[in-house]
């Protein structure tokens, strides 16, 4: 057996107790094996069967549905009979546009095997082929950026939607992101449009400053600090800015600074502001927009409306890293370090032969690399797995 698959199997044999899927009998399960076979439309009766199945198959990837079905094993969505679906939010560092996520980027030519650092060039400098593979890597900065989004998402879900604690399931995907599911019964029946609305809410996409700083005739109504949602967040942050800038040196636009007293009363107590200047309205709306931009949660908005999605089984192993798709409590999330805490594979030594440059990296507190392509190194399984699964090495 492929030593990597053997390592996955060992993990599932030893750690199967940590595999937990609520309402497992209503879920569709999907697996991708190490030889690339996709096993779909599987259903299991209970957790024990799921755990046994993972230990037996030792799949490269294992997923479960957000949907709860009458007949999870049926082949088509219509036959499955959707009873309800958890609301899913997907945070993927790839969509955050942070430079740290490009750390360790490399490429390899699929024709001749030549490789190099950085983004793939237009053509292979050795053989001229245009068939080049882009190889990404994991970095702490990139994972931190994703975690910050997840923490902000949880704050919004709690304050606005009133979901927290055991109504939520949060987990690291095992790669570059986080998944958050709302388990609560009252959200299970939401349709596509309603889920889309939730996605646009947390991502601030449907925010409209003209609604929040609303002008009718000569009266400007502002949001108030005791309001909820984006209105309250904006009012509180603006009030802080106004009060913080009372010392004189200020970054406030002059239109805003001139009416500070009235604005403080408007934001604090809801006293409408009379005869606002056009510049004031424009500047307030722009400030509101900036606050939303800074605090919005950058989720993948396409994922949330889709009730037929599957995500990784909590505490299963991710087939691109060998890390655990770790279920976390909101408290655990704050201090969570994926490259330490989510290591699931053993430290048994294994020899790896690199086929592309490997950047310097830290896993479980230990530093590895950098390695040139074409060298043999002895590594603990958890570090070797990263190189192998990221396509930068082979077992000789």
């Amino acid at each position, binding site marked *: 057996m492929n030593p990597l698959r053997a390592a996955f199997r060992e993990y599932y044999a030893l750690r199967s107790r940590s595999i937990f899927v609520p309402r497992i009998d209503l879920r569709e399960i999907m697996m991708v094996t190490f030889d690339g076979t996709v096993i779909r439309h599987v259903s299991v009766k209970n957790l024990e069967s799921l755990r046994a199945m993972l230990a037996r198959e030792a799949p490269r990837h294992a997923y479960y549905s957000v949907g709860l079905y009458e007949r999870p094993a049926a082949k088509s969505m219509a036959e499955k009979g959707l009873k309800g679906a958890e609301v899913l939010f997907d945070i993927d560092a790839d969509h955050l546009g942070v430079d740290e996520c490009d750390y360790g980027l490399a490429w390899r030519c699929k024709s001749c095997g030549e490789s190099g650092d950085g983004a793939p060039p237009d053509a292979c400098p050795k053989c001229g082929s245009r068939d080049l593979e882009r190889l990404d890597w994991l970095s702490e900065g990139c994972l931190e950026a994703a975690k910050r989004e997840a923490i902000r998402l949880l704050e919004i879900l709690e*304050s*606005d*939607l*009133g*979901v927290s604690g055991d109504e939520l399931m949060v987990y690291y995907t095992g790669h570059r992101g986080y998944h958050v599911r709302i388990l609560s019964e*009252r*959200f299970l*029946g*939401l*349709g596509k*449009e*309603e889920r*889309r*609305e*939730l*996605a*646009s*809410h947390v991502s*601030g*996409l*449907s*925010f*409209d400053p*003209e*609604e*929040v700083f609303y002008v009718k005739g000569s009266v400007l109504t502002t949001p108030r600090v005791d*309001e*909820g*949602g*984006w*209105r*309250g967040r904006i009012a509180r942050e603006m009030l802080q800015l106004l009060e913080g800038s009372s010392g004189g040196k200020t970054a406030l636009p002059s239109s805003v600074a001139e009416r500070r007293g009235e604005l403080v009363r408007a934001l604090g107590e809801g006293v409408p502001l009379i005869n606002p200047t056009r510049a004031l309205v424009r500047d307030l709306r722009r400030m509101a927009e900036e606050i*939303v931009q800074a605090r919005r949660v950058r989720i993948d*908005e*396409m994922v949330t*409306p889709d009730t037929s999605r599957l995500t990784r089984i909590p505490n299963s192993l991710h087939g691109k890293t060998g890390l655990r798709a770790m279920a976390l409590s909101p408290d655990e999330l704050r201090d969570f370090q994926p490259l330490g805490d989510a290591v699931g594979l053993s430290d048994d030594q294994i020899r790896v032969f690199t086929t592309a440059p490997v950047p310097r990296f830290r896993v479980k507190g230990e530093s590895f690399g950098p390695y040139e392509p074409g060298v043999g190194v002895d590594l603990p399984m958890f570090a070797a797995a990263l190189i192998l699964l990221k396509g930068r090495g082979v077992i000789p």
Partner: protein
Amino acid sequence: MEEHDPALASRYPFTSLGERLIESEGLTEKDLAYDPLLEQSRRHARGRLLSAVGGGLYLDDLYLPPLDAVATYLIVRLVSSWIGDPFLNRLVAEHESKRFHRLARDEPIHVLAWLGGELGAAIRLDGERAWIDISSYLRAAAGLGGPRWRLANRDVRSGQVLVGRRELARLLQELLRTHLLEPTPRPSLSPPLRAIGTEVTRRLEERKSSIQSSRPSRQALPPCIERLVEKAERGENMSHQERFTLAAYLLRVGWSVDRVVDLFRSAPDFKERVARYQVSHIAKGGYNPPNCETLRSWGICVEDCGVKSPLSYGRRGRRRR
């Protein structure tokens, strides 16, 4: 308590007050079909169904005694379930919920709160305003266009959304509409009610045949527009932004105003005059459909198809062929 005011059953026959009345009177399908005392209910039910098909609003039966009002409503429901046509169901749901709104918009807030409870929402009063549970809010507001209904612009706290009295009435209209769209088993009907059904079906077919098929070729359409065309064809309720996007896109790719108006003909709230005015306005203004980022923010985008505007998707598609 005003909840037990019998006049409420007359205005809102779909509520538990209506159900209790049916039970206490032991009303059966045979009574609805044959009881001479319910003749005016049969007449009004027929009027309501035909109004629904014709796009009107039937208000001749606003002040019926409770039992007659409940009977009228039951006949409307039974006959439309018996016909079992999804397009008719949407027209009836649209008509009945509009009629509901006409009555509800003038009710005091505590009556609206009670109605909300009847429609499955959890509502808590806060002076002249009310907090509605977020799931019900989302179910209702999903069908409403305009930035003011978007959650991001509202006071939303711990799973509840604050709404004004008039807003609540509008949301309840939507909740009733979606409630009426839930599938019901097909009943068997006695001949007098079947006769109403046959007449309604005939009118329905007439309306359907006036809707010309004006489908664009499928391939050229970006997925978001494709979905909007399907929604329009199925006669589903569309938000203002969805209608604007669809009309602006189609006009830009060369459709005539007539052809675009025809596409909206299945809409349950279709009004030729209004639709023509709106579409002509968009045509005259030469508006472009919104770009993909805006469409994403409006929740209209359905997948990332790699373009920045739905128009460039069309162009690429046309060039390829």
